[in-house]
């Protein structure tokens, strides 16, 4: 009898701990959503645009969509980045002529935790976690550097120097920023994430295995 009572007390303790932890996270997430709506939503949208979104409407946006930030970014990245925001895009979003001045809002540790808690909860419906891991591999490198020359638009680190085009987001440090599974899901079906995008669609042009190799290669970028 005494053992049963002890067991019930222990189970009750764990259950209340889980409920408390979850409700704390939920409260943080809701507070983060409020902060996001006040300070971030003028530039970043978190709802899916219409399927027939026009290029003009797309070009009018001031910042990238964060609708699937929880799938795209590695856990912890958003929180750290918001406290020390270093430009990911060399140019101002949607501009081909203005250099990014790097004046993104910098948040306190407390606010960054709240906003990150909210954004990490925003997941893409079509996103599947398959456990893809970053890996510097020859097949991915061949596609990235020769077959489709992705660095024509994306900055990358080559030995000790940074090289590559300016129009796309930089891939320097992708190993700390991007989920390999997200890279694959995006390359495999970009329209599932956004109706239109400046990056050409390669799905159907690159075999599935090669896409995985490419995704793992990009995900390994320092």
């Amino acid at each position, binding site marked *: 009898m005494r053992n049963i009572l002890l067991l019930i007390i222990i189970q009750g303790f764990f259950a209340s701990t889980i409920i408390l932890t979850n409700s704390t996270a939920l409260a943080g997430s809701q507070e983060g959503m409020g902060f996001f709506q006040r300070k971030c939503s003028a530039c970043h949208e978190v709802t899916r645009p219409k399927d027939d979104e026009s290029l003009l409407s*797309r070009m009018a946006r001031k910042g990238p969509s964060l609708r699937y930030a929880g799938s795209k970014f590695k856990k912890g990245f958003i929180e750290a980045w918001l406290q020390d925001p270093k430009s990911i895009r060399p140019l101002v979003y949607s501009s081909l002529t203005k250099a990014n001045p790097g004046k993104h809002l910098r948040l306190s540790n407390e606010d960054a935790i709240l906003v990150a808690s909210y954004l990490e909860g925003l997941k893409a419906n079509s996103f599947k976690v398959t456990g893809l891991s970053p890996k510097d591999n020859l097949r991915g490198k061949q596609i990235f550097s020769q077959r*489709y020359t992705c660095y024509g*638009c994306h900055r990358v680190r080559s030995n000790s120097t940074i090289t590559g085009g300016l129009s796309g987001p930089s891939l320097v440090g992708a190993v700390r920023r991007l989920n390999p599974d997200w890279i694959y899901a995006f390359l495999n079906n970009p329209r599932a994430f956004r109706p239109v995008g400046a990056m050409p669609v390669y799905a159907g042009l690159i075999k599935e295995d090669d896409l995985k190799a490419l995704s793992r290669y990009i995900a390994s970028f320092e």
Partner: protein
Amino acid sequence: MNMFRLLTLLTIAISLVVFVLNFSKLMPNVTDAKVNFRYYCAQCHGLKGKGNGPNALKMMPVDPRDLTDASAIGKLSDNDILRVIREGGSAPSRSTFMPPFTKTIPEIEIMYLKDYIRDLCKC
């Protein structure tokens, strides 16, 4: 006017109104070639097609084509231009920096882009 004629005219009139109101939904959205050019091509070829977009950097092994250069573009047939837009630079054994747009831009808009490039080079 008998009742039958009146009903027929009324049906035709209502059908016309419904058709006009839904015309934009029935027709596929076709993006203007200038907008497509600005969004996709100008990244490398520049806003005016002179080959000086933000990705045209000295560090790159190849310069994007100056699409206003009539002496070079004028040598290309319509099919040459269409093939490069659809399949990328590797199709005619040129630079792979030019990506394939066959899965990105609808075929009808690729045709209009070709015409737009012809306008740029006046050739």
